[in-house]
């Protein structure tokens, strides 16, 4: 049986990115994580992540959570 949890996948991906940048100083890590997501994630993925944050952001790495604050809401999601 094929199962798929889209939010879980996005959280995993965002946490992986944050996990890489966490080696850098906190402010830089947050900025780089946000920049990476902005550069490489399609707007609907970013929106879904923001929606998840809107409902508490369960499971998100602290840096990823802070990075979502820097992501502007996509215009054409």
């Amino acid at each position: 049986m094929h199962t798929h949890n889209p939010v879980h996948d996005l959280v995993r991906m965002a946490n992986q990115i944050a996990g890489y940048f966490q080696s850098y100083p906190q402010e830089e890590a947050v900025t780089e994580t946000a920049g990476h997501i902005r550069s490489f994630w399609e707007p609907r993925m970013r929106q879904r992540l923001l929606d998840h944050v809107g409902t508490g952001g369960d499971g998100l790495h602290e840096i990823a959570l802070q990075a979502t604050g820097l992501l502007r809401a996509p215009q054409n999601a």
Partner: protein
Amino acid sequence: MSIKDIDYGTPARDSATMVTLDIDGRTVTVPEGTSVMRAAMEAGITVPKLCATDMLDAYGSCRLCMVEIEGRRGTPASCTTPVAPGMKVHTQNERLGRLRRGVMELYISDHPLDCLTCPTNGNCELQDMAGAVGLRAVRYGFEGENHLQAQKDESNPYFTFDPSKCIVCSRCVRACGEVQGTFALTIDGRGFDSKVSPGALESFMDSECVSCGACVQACPTATLTEKSVIELGQPEHSVITTCAYCGVGCSFKAEMKGTTVVRMVPHKDGGANEGHSCVKGRFAWGYATHADRQTKPMVRDSIDEPWRVVSWDEAISFAAQRLMAVQAKYGRGSIGGITSSRCTNEEVYVVQKMIRAAFGNNNVDTCARVCHSPTGYGLKQTFGTSAGTQDFRSVDKSDVILVIGANPTDGHPVFGSRMKKRLRQGAKLIVLDPRRIDLVRSPHVSATHHLQLQPGSNVAALNALAHVVVTEGLVARDFVAERCDPVEFARWEAFIRDPRHSPEAVEEHTGIPAADLRAAARLYATGGSAAIYYGLGVTEHSQGSTAVMGMANLAMATGNIGRDGVGVNPLRGQNNVQGSCDMGSFPHELTGYRHVSDDVVRQQFEMVWNATLDPEPGLRIPNMFDAAVDGSFKGLFVQGEDIAQSDPNTQHVFAALRAMEIVVVQDLFLNETAAFAHVFLPGTSFLEKDGTFTNAERRINRVRPVMPSQTGKQEWEVVCELAAAMGYPMRYESGAQIMDEIARLTPTFAGVSFAKLDRVGSVQWPCTDGDSVGTPIMHADGFVRGQGRFMITEYVPTPERASRFYPLILTTGRILSHYNVGAQTRRTANVAWHPEDILEIHAHDAEQRGIRDDDLVSIASRIGATTLRARISDRMPQGVVYTTFHHPVTGANVVTTDNSDWATNCPEYKVTAVQVTRSNHPSDWQIQRGAVVEVAAE
């Protein structure tokens, strides 16, 4: 183009010192070390020869090339005699003629006189030499003892070995050793009993022969002859083109009879291969005319229905209307496409243009997503551009070669042979790989260090290598100070110096004895020019991009960048991976790796394309699958890729494809993905394409059509028609015109045109106008990004762990005889070597499970299971199993997971926790697939 190349008899020499001599009254100046034979040929004087050829070192056995040299006694062989200043050489006189006739008489006295029916009639050096020396009679007769009844070996599917025609010149034996580096052939016996022997008097198929064709190419008689030549006769013209298999991108002469390929011969002037080939490029081209080839467009309303053959107009109209209907219903971003690294730059360019301009979004991605996307990210971050740093020739100058997660003798065999040649010359080898690949120990090659690491621990191992460099004072301080960002270096140095990165500290993760790792680090840092070559064993991990940056750090820290013999070099899987990435196939980048959010760049494209472009990145391939399952992505155009077989977590891919309302497949064959398609647009093989491929060394090579398109159209024409049917007019007159547009919009392709490529052969980007051949070595005077940037590379173990229920780690890869999903090679005689995917397993792991050679076994992961045959292999470390993904019935990707690289979503094919058990039946998935295939065949 003529069939025969000039054979200079011995290889060219590279020397700054020039030598002038006199040959038959002509003054000749050549580099020091050149043979008299070659000097004569360069002056237009042909010296008879049989055992000499310019692909091999001089041997001096046939005694036909003897010359007279004033002041020297006797008649020395011109092939083994180097030129000397003031030398006076005579190549022709009565005495030399008499001696040569005598030699030829002996050869012909033991050779069949069947020239008129011989397959090489008209292309036989023995025949040519008999004519050249004026042989008119054989005084010895033909009744004596001879080899004329020797049995033919026809075991190889592609060539025959007829020892009755052999003159024992050893060219085949030397080619196997010197060029290919396999040493499968030898001369058995002595004197009259001497004969060429594959292995220990085995047949070619039973020997270690890898069927590269070097022996066939070297043979001066009909002893080794392509079966296609025996069947079709000698070719009458040739066309230079580029192989469509791996990222080496070998140049070939397609030798033709009308529009039929007689044989493919590696092109001596090809910059990537310089006259060598492998079994795929040399022989496995028959798929282009295979009976499975689809040449008519087809459509169907539902994937449960049979296909209907329709006209091009109907197929294109059907596809356009469905795609537009999906967009009308679900939104502009609900469709997208995937480009292919098996297609030309021009074909890839028009697909991404169609998606950006006609679909109106950036939902374009390419198969590089699942192989080398971390290379793009990692090298861009550190060096400033998404490409390998060297040309292939560079390895000839390496003193230390570090191979990580690559298997060049199987995956990139022509470059593998080149590397082995350098290793035989004395370069040191470090291999970082869980498996004992052939390079670790093969004839006359032995790795100084084989660091047999645990799958998934690349970053820990690379960090430990760098830790040794930093803590043992091996940093190239001058290089770093001059070329690299000092702030980033200082930060990295402090990071990597930490004891947690020491070989001793990471040993529990990597499994590499610390002392071995330290020794390897010292060798890399201090052994002279050190080069890194890597493959998918680096990139296809959750930390693939981190590992690429780790290698770049290591190269910068030791100053091994920016000159011959060094560098960081991805070995690209498919022939045009580099090109498809260059051509703007990624959802966030336009051609030349420029982000879609860059207003200036985007406006340049908007002006030329007359379209408004989306400034936001689009979906990557895995994101497309996820969005399809979620219901927001409903239409896909797939160019020349078989995502249903090649992408991980097959069940998820199947679910995504089933969820789409329109899937358009453009391909040669009804592949696994086509089972989910509504429109099939027949594609063209490389023998029909008119365009360019860009290989792993950034070399842009021409792909020339040798036969008419089997479909009546070039693939780019079909894409243009689809774009036009969707309301975006896109028209080109030729592939050349597409390249002109690429060059205009892409700074690294400046000045590239078909006319220039036809004139200079090939160019390596970054290019400049004029007749420059580009940039063989990158970052020579400075990094593309300015200062090299050291990146922090913390090791983060993959979440995919072995457990009590899944105690083994599966890693996947490829084998010499097959290519990618096998769609091409499975439709050739290459299946003789690898008819099915095999699971390699360590003897201890097999014994624990009661598994013997050739047993059927079930391999199960947390995702799925499949059944295949097992082979006990001493290549494997305990706890790790390996298989290939060349055969769809195996479904190796049924077991691989959704885990992916943090930066690029490149799947983690190389680490899957599995259990292996004996089995006697196919897996549930294989039974389901059988049902799907049955429906598709109806």
